[in-house]
């Protein structure tokens, strides 16, 4: 690679040119994990991710380039945007799992497609019924209980996804199992939101 500014040789591994210190454009091959120099794994250490995000942000944030020449300013904006998008995608386990599926060529949630999970349908109906009853009765304790149980289910789903991803050949064997858990997680997120809206003072 050649630096756009001084035309010297640059290394892919660092955002800055070794000789003139100008910020270099993003490489096309970099995925969200490589931005943070983390292995492509579902299980990650949140503190480490946050630490790396902050360290990189300090160097790449547009605030550092407000007085830079337009081209470098544009590169900084692109880099910082990518960094924030990547952090958002990896921080949350649901998005992280969906991203890993996408990297494996399994964009199960693309194009707004809905996910069919007939086994879960019955459970969904039970949750909805419990929620509707608690709301109709104005039963704050019941609503809080529903939210707490949903959170427990979410934690269980995360642990299950973790186990699936640990398998050597998860991308050929477990894609559907993981995707259905993500779809269920989305459902629990909605249940929690609804339960807390009903319970809390408006």
């Amino acid at each position: 690679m050649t630096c756009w500014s001084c035309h010297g040789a640059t290394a892919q591994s660092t955002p800055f040119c070794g000789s003139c210190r100008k910020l270099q454009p993003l490489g096309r091959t970099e995925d969200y994990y490589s931005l943070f120099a983390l292995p492509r794994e579902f299980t990650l250490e949140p503190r480490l991710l946050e630490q790396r995000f902050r360290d990189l942000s300090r160097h790449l944030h547009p605030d550092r380039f407000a007085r830079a020449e337009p081209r470098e300013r544009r590169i900084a904006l692109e880099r910082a945007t990518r960094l924030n998008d990547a952090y958002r995608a990896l921080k949350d386990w649901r998005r992280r799992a969906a991203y890993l599926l996408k990297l494996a060529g399994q964009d199960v949630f693309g194009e707004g497609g809905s996910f069919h999970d007939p086994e879960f349908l019955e459970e969904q109906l039970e949750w909805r019924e419990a929620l509707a009853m608690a709301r109709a009765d104005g039963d704050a304790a019941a609503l809080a209980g529903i939210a707490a149980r949903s959170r427990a289910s979410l934690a269980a789903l995360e642990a299950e996804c973790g186990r699936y991803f640990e398998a050597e050949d998860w991308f050929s064997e477990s894609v559907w199992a993981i995707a259905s858990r993500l779809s269920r997680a989305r459902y629990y997120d909605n249940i929690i939101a609804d339960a807390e809206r009903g319970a809390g003072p408006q």
Partner: protein
Amino acid sequence: MGRAIGIDLGTTNSLVAHVDARNRPQVIPADEGRPLLPSAVHYAADGSVEVGLAARRRAPERPVDTILSVKRFMGRGPGDLRPEDRGISRFDESGAVVRLLVADGARAVTPIEVSAEVLRVLKRRADEALGGPPGGCVITVPAYFDDAQRQATKDAGRLAGLDVLRLLNEPTAAALAYGLDKQVQGTFAVYDLGGGTFDVSILRLDHGVFEVLATGGDTHLGGDDFDRVVAARLLERGLTPPVASPGPAVLRGALAAAQRLRETLTTEAAVEADVELPGGHRLLARLTREELEALIAPVIERTTAPCRGALKDAGLSTVDGVVLVGGTTRTPAVRRHVRALFGKEPLTDLDPDTVVALGAAVQADALDRGGREDVLLLDVIPLSLGVEMMGGVVEKLILRNSTIPASASQAFTTYADGQTGMVIHVVQGERELAHDCRSLARFTLKGIPAMPAGIARVEITYAVDADGILQVSARELATGLEQTIQVKATYGLGEEEVEAMLIESIEHAEADVTERFVREWRVEAERILASLQSAFAVDGELLSAAERTAIEERLAGLRGAMDGDDYLAIKTWIGTVDGATKVFAERRMDKHVRAAMAGHRVEEFASEVRTTRQDPGEEE
């Protein structure tokens, strides 16, 4: 290059600050030696403009020509005007952007131009104080400002000749000033109640990292609303002789009296007013602090839901501290409310009036010097950005409280065979349906290769920059054909309009400008003539002979004006043609709506019948 400055462009007052040689942020006196410049602009009939205290003194005598609280109208269209906005100012609601009629009705100014007048004065004060024109500047905006309001603020800065390095959220600016000055750490709520806007931001401060976790607010909630309820009570109880619907002068007088009473009641238990108002009216009233608090309680209560929502979005049930910002937080009842809401004694170490400007100065100085090693500001977008899908439902691309800059993409497919265009409607807000959200832009993607339905795929990418302002681009995936769309905000000003105003404000190259206006208005007139000709051909029978003659007479007048060089004459004739063809347009609309019910698409006709337009170039 000069020193960088920070500007707090407030609803009621504006301030400018800089970082001094000892590295301390300082407010620069802006008006008659005082730090606060009232955000008041007076447009006299003779064309002169006054800003600040001088303008505010004119307000009682010239209520319509003196604009206060213009921030409420930034980035807003006529459809956004609320009942409480009316009563004093006169509006021109013919364009996409609200305009205010001033100088005895001789001028129509946009809120952007009014704000630019305030900014120009601040720039001049900085120039005098710093011994030369300022370098870059940071202008603060309410965290809850949407894309159109941000764009309008940035345009005002450009119009005032400022080099706007960044728009900074007001609560974030305050947090920056607090964090650096008081070395606070932990999670904080910034409760910012100003003259016209309310913001709450939840931040985590950790060793120089200022991370906004969530933000909420209401861009139409502030001290102005306190004044309105108090003024209504004064008018109801103490106006002699009483009137059913008070005019602008009486309203303005009552609002000013309300503000004074309210401020006095911050420290006193009771206060009396005896004010002479124009038109032989007199306002005589007594108000106790208890009565005041009962009146404003419902307004204060409106800050509760945004605070609870922001805490919830931040994933917190409580915070380590609460910071008060904005002059309205001096009100004792507001402080009690905040204490009860967060269960914490609020921090008021820094002056709530100046803290935002100080934070803006710190940020401006940092940006100007290539950033600070010890500070990292991570701010968020306040409202989700989405795109309208089939059926009017919104698909959110970037969720609220996402750290900016941020981007997101979404692919769409064509729904008809051979479809070569696609309408993209960009909206901002949390509601499910597009018409409940703010419409930011609507544009048509052209040049999609004709293919069977569902084959052509267009990827739309939203990118929000560090100012919280959106750019949209589109790519046809099958062919790789890329188009970057200049999002022209529905309620903002186009590039050309800003340019036209810039040219006007410089008062330069007047002949060139005039020539351009003449050209542009001629083009517009030609467009109208052509569309009317085709309308006559299709629907001529909808007009009686007399009506047709009346229209033709005006068209002749328009053609005559088009031969001359007076663009105002062309514009005026277009106005009369519009008036004369209004009934015709309505009848055509009726006819085609009926036709549409018989299976035609009404849009085909609506766009052709429409006779209103955006001004191609505006000198006012």
